[in-house]
């Protein structure tokens, strides 16, 4: 019975990952909605708005990368709520009064979030292919796109975990994470930035999601990265480091009273 060292940290984390995934699997409503909603959004954009939006290419080829990022936003807000649920019930005191690593609890949530997102993203991607999405990407391009998406999801999930720790209730966690769903609309996800009014353009052009979307789009449609790759990588890495630190520090402090 050792409570020290790397092995213990790994074992604690594995236990908490098991827990979070089990809880996710049993929360069928949430899982269902987080897959269905992006599918509906994609159908809405492709079939309803798409005809009126000109992007110089088939609209579905333009919009799929944006939908993929929107999907991760839904997944992340569920993570914020799951963390807030732990923080506001007695569960957190139980876990914190056990001799375990404090980041194990949050890592469990984040890992479940990444797994959930991987599934919903895969489903959305398959559906998009059925709807006429025609990527023009080689194996390395796919690898690049998937790698960046995973990094983005990990970073966003840690941000969601931090919001869950800050939130005073599950409801406020849901509200706090609302902007994660909103930010993609102010990017090049659905329309080209050039079509936006002048005051909005600099924001949309330089917010973190635009380079990520441009990069994923560049990989998948074979239109090239135009230097956005490094910007996207920097944003995701920065967001990850910031969110991870914020979440773990706040987590330790919050429960310390």
């Amino acid at each position, binding site marked *: *019975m*050792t*409570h020290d060292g790397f092995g*213990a940290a790994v*074992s*604690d984390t594995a*236990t*908490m990952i*098991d*827990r979070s995934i*089990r*809880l996710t699997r*049993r*929360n069928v409503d949430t899982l269902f909605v987080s897959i269905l909603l992006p599918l509906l959004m994609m159908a809405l954009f492709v079939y309803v708005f798409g005809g009126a939006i000109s992007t110089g290419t088939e609209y579905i080829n333009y919009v799929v990368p944006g939908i993929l990022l929107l999907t991760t936003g839904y997944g992340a807000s569920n993570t914020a709520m799951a963390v807030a649920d732990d923080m506001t*019930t*007695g*569960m957190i*005191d*139980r*876990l*914190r*009064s*056990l*001799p*375990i690593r404090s980041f194990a609890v949050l890592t469990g949530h984040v890992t479940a979030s990444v797994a959930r997102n991987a599934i919903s993203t895969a489903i959305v991607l398959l559906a998009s292919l059925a709807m006429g999405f025609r990527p023009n990407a080689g194996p390395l391009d796919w690898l690049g796109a998937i790698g960046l998406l995973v990094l983005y999801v990990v970073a966003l999930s840690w941000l969601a975990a931090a919001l869950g720790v800050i939130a005073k209730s599950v409801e406020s966690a849901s509200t706090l994470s609302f902007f994660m769903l909103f930010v993609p609309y102010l990017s090049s996800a659905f329309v080209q930035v050039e079509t936006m009014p002048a005051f909005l353009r600099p924001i949309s052009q330089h917010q973190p999601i635009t380079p990520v979307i441009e990069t994923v789009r560049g990989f998948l449609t074979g239109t090239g990265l135009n230097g956005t790759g490094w910007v996207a990588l920097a944003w995701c890495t920065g967001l990850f480091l910031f969110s991870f630190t914020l979440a773990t520090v706040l987590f330790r402090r919050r*429960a*310390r*009273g």
Partner: protein
Amino acid sequence: MIVEAVGLRKSFGPTSVLEGVDLAVPEGSVLALLGPNGAGKTTIVRILTTLARPDEGHATIAGYDVVREPAKVRGVISLTGQHAAVDDNQTGLENLVMVGRLMHLGHGRARQRAQELLEQFALTGAMNRRAKTYSGGMSRRLDLAMSLVARPRVIFLDEPTTGLDPASRLTMWDAIGDLVRDGTTILLTTQYLEEADRLADRIVLLDKGRITASGTADALKTQIGGERIELYFADEVVARKAAGLLGGLADGPLLNLPSDGTAAHLHHVLDQLRDEGLLPSRVSSHRPTLDDVFLTLTA
């Protein structure tokens, strides 16, 4: 002393919650922190279980400092909080195995320990049901079972029966009683005097962040005033005559007499009354209850 606290102080912003609390709990005993809402009971428990830091003062559990050696403290304690800390979407068994794995028992041993505890807390029949289907009493029992997975030396129970129906409360008391017999040290908080009276070796009465009294239930009862004898006579005339003989306070046909609670004193009183032909129709003896203690000391 397995639990020792000296001069604990804690404020939240301008609100002072603890104003210098000392505690000492011998190994194998049960201490009840008794007090109304807002007395500081939960704050004391949070400090002793490493979940909050005291502003001043220090505390040790089994010799480990709660601020400097929180990991060591967590290795010897367990906490059962005011709200059942169970995962509603995991089964009873899964909840217990999870805690066992977090205590690094290994998967097989964790499972075995879970089975033992399910048996001990009469939850075996419900072990494969999700905890959200459990009654309030079952949730609390599962909660307590989860805090016992690693056989802690000191168990903290924060209002273990608040919100339970009387039958579930009795079951919970029995479960706690079993732990006491096994020699576990228990520190519990409660608003119920009956609970403190029944479970605790020593009671610490807490009000507005200060200890207002402490001792055994009996000592506390003696402290606020003695026992009394009530004598019921045929009418108030007889009662007044008896008061003239013995002192005390006549109230209609009833005479209220201070007493030291011994049989000899009662015998002496009755002898005197018989000699004067003033025998009462009924006699009762009263000890102050913990409710009297509570109301007197926190008034």
